């Protein structure tokens, strides 16, 4: 087996600091995105309720006004 190479200290510090910075960045961005997604979900749920109500009314009107004999 090839003996392990002595990595230069610059590369070692760069690697581990990049790891640390990456972890902090990931955590911060996650905390930033989470409330935005919850807000979107809430808005979507409200609009869904309103939309289904409108669809129901439209469907009832269509049923009442079409010329089928199967009523």
């Amino acid at each position, binding site marked *: 087996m090839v003996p*392990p190479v002595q990595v230069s200290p610059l590369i*070692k510090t760069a690697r581990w600091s990049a*790891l640390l910075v*990456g972890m902090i*960045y*990931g*955590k911060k961005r996650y905390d930033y995105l989470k409330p935005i997604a*919850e807000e979107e979900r809430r808005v979507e749920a409200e609009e869904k309720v309103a939309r289904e109500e409108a669809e129901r009314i439209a469907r009832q009107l269509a049923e009442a006004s079409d010329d089928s004999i199967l009523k």
Partner: protein
Amino acid sequence: VLTAAVTYSKPRLATFWHYARVELVPPTPAEIPQAIESAKGLVKSFQAGRLSQITVKDALRNGLVATEVLLWFYIGEIIGKGSLIGYNV
């Protein structure tokens, strides 16, 4: 199947540790000033115009090392956001 996986991975784990103990170790507090020194030396050499004297082979090697350092940033981001692909909000 579990015992087979363990017996398969033991020697490979041993070789991984054999290299990782020397190569992947975080820098000791004594090495951090050395790292800053060599970073300063890098900047100075680029100011002295050594950029025109690097061989392509050296440039490619340094580019690969730089890419690997950036790779660790993305690994850190995966750990920080707690999921492999995308943010689970």
